[in-house]
């Protein structure tokens, strides 16, 4: 019984939250890594693309809710999601046409493009706040829990509860579907192959007749879709606040770099590494240990490796270690 209690506490407070967070980071990191691999710059506007995409979805969700359209136990935002992706695809393509294309034609250095994306970030930052404001928006509806902590306790008779939120399940399912589709697209379709060719060697790709503008456009559309999906999933799971989305940029980049910039597989691995390290290393194991050890050995202290203040230090320490020993990341991305 005690072992089960310990396991439940671990699952409830460490495994499940970290998995959901990891999936959200992975989707964000995928977008960043794709842009880096194909367009060859770090897109600082990604966090705000997520925020803007989520804004569109939230507005649409409100409209649907007002019209009485819903998905029952699932959040209404899922209906609005494709619409949000379409709008964001339009927005990023327009941004590319108005801003990035100019620098691409001039073959500007990646550092210049990074600063350009910083400018785009500020503009999107402002537009998002202009449309929806700075406040917290809650747009999740439908059933909040698949299983609440109390239900679990009543069901199993354990002391510890295990809560599984609908949004956590949706996050995981969506992440798996999206990642699966993306890999199929990149490895099996003609467009996907031309994107990988363009990423490997731009000049060779051009020589073999690949249309660069088309590759760039498809990349932007996929990145917009990934950003919107990641943003909406995150917003459903926690809540939507433009400032938090801006701050999400940091762990997302950490995830992409740890995994290896430009490597889609690495982005996913990196997302989970960052999420799990943030929670596991700073977790106070007191509860779990108390269940596992006989009463006489029960710990007085918190059995905490380091305070939660250090959770970012942990992820960045991992980032530095990876860069020192595997400069291209866990999955052989590009190093610049």
């Amino acid at each position, binding site marked *: 019984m005690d072992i089960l209690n310990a396991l439940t506490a671990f699952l409830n407070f*460490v495994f499940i*939250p970290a998995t959901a967070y990891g999936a959200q980071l992975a989707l964000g990191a995928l977008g960043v890594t794709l842009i880096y691999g194909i367009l060859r710059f770090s897109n600082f506007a990604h966090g705000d693309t997520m925020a803007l995409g989520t804004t569109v979805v939230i507005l649409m969700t409100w409209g649907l809710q007002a019209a009485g359209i819903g998905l029952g136990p699932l959040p209404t935002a899922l209906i609005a999601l494709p619409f949000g992706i379409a709008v964001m695809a339009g927005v990023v393509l327009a941004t590319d046409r108005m801003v990035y294309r100019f620098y691409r034609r001039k073959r500007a250095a990646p550092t210049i493009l990074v600063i350009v994306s910083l400018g785009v970030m500020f503009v999107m930052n402002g537009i998002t706040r202009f449309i929806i404001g700075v*406040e917290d928006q809650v747009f999740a509806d439908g059933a909040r829990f698949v299983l609440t902590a*109390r239900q679990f306790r009543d069901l199993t008779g354990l002391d510890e509860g295990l809560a599984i939120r609908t949004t956590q399940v949706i996050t995981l399912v969506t992440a798996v579907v999206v990642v699966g589709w993306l890999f199929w697209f990149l490895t099996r379709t003609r467009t996907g192959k031309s994107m990988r060719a363009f990423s490997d060697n731009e000049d060779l790709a051009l020589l073999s007749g690949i249309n660069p503008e088309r590759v760039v456009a498809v990349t932007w559309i996929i990145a917009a879709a990934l950003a919107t999906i990641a943003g909406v999933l*995150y917003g459903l799971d926690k*809540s939507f*606040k433009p400032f938090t989305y801006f701050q999400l940029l940091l762990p997302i980049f950490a995830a992409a770099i740890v995994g290896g910039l430009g490597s889609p597989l690495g982005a996913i691995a990196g997302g989970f590494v960052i*999420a799990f390290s*943030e929670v596991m290393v700073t*977790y106070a194991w007191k509860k779990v240990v108390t269940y596992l050890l006989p009463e006489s050995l029960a710990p007085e202290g918190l059995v905490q490796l380091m305070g939660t203040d250090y959770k970012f230090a942990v992820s960045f320490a991992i980032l530095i270690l990876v860069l020192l020993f595997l400069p291209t990341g866990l999955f052989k991305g590009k190093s610049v």
Partner: protein
Amino acid sequence: MKKMMTATAMVALMAGAATAQDVKIGILLGFTGPLESITPSMALGAELAIKEVNDSGKFALGTVTAVRSDSTCVDAAAATAAAERLVTSDKVAAIMGADCSGVTGAVLQNVARPNGVGMISPSATSPALSTAEDDGLFFRTAPSDARQGVVMTNVIMDRGFKTVALTYTNNDYGKGLADSFQAAFEAAGGKVTISVPHEDGKADYSAEVASLASAGGEVLVVAGYTDQGGKGIIQASLDSGAFDSFVLPDGMVGQQIATDLGASLNTSFGQYPGTDSKGAEVFQGLATAAGFDGTSAFAPESYDAAALIMMAMAAAGSTASRDWSTKVMDLANAPGEPILPGELGKALDLIAAGTDIDYVGATAVELIGAGESAGNYREVEFKDGEIVTVRFR
């Protein structure tokens, strides 16, 4: 030479007379950042006092105008730059602000003292500000958190809770409140199982909640901000079943969080500065008439801060900070004719007649120590998205 000096003095006097027609008061609050959902009501509170004084037509020093500026609440450099601009380019005679403790301390040391401009903060509550060097220029209509720590201990103890887990936002305000609360709570025989800081605006609080849950406690004290990490912590705790009841101090009590979390906060409680004095009621009436929520946290304190500044200027007959700042303590405290919100015109008459006044205002202002409010608190509970006042302490 003598002639020239006289001429210069005359020019200076005339210039003084010309600018006296327009008295500017800077309203330095975090219109963006962690407090952005309560600062609009705070600014409106201050501007309500200014409008009242102007409409009375009895403020002899000129027309008062408010200049809003953004303290960001968290970015000391940005707040300092904003305050510097208020002082040097807008030429404000006083600052109503800043809001959060960290930026208030920075503005006090970097702008107010070097330029000799007086400031009254409506909401900076860090105990550290009680002992900060201020050249007599700094006051606050908010009480120090040393006092709130004691009040919160009483609120929790009276409900029969003896062990609590504690998390605080990692800044001057959160740390100050957490420390003073922990000291008071342990002195009263309670036990704080763990004290975990959290960073604001972060994506995920699983790690903090996991540690808090592991340490355990009957209730969770969240000394954070309602728009920020504090809400994330509560949400994550509720979702994972870690805690059901929360104690929400001043930075956490807001309509937004009550609405968002609804019935799941029904066993939670908290406290924030407030009084049951007649002034509070009058102020709410005035605020409602002016179209904003007078019960919003720190809105009454903002009204009082702005009113005190103008009363002090009138009493000193000068807009120079070194003159009016000496009058603040006299006006705020007894003895004298008590002044409630909406009676600023009457107060100006009394001041002009040389009668002593005791500014009571919307929050029963009583300044103690180095010029901070003695502190009255409103104990609240949450009921299906409504904030219900239980009693006053």
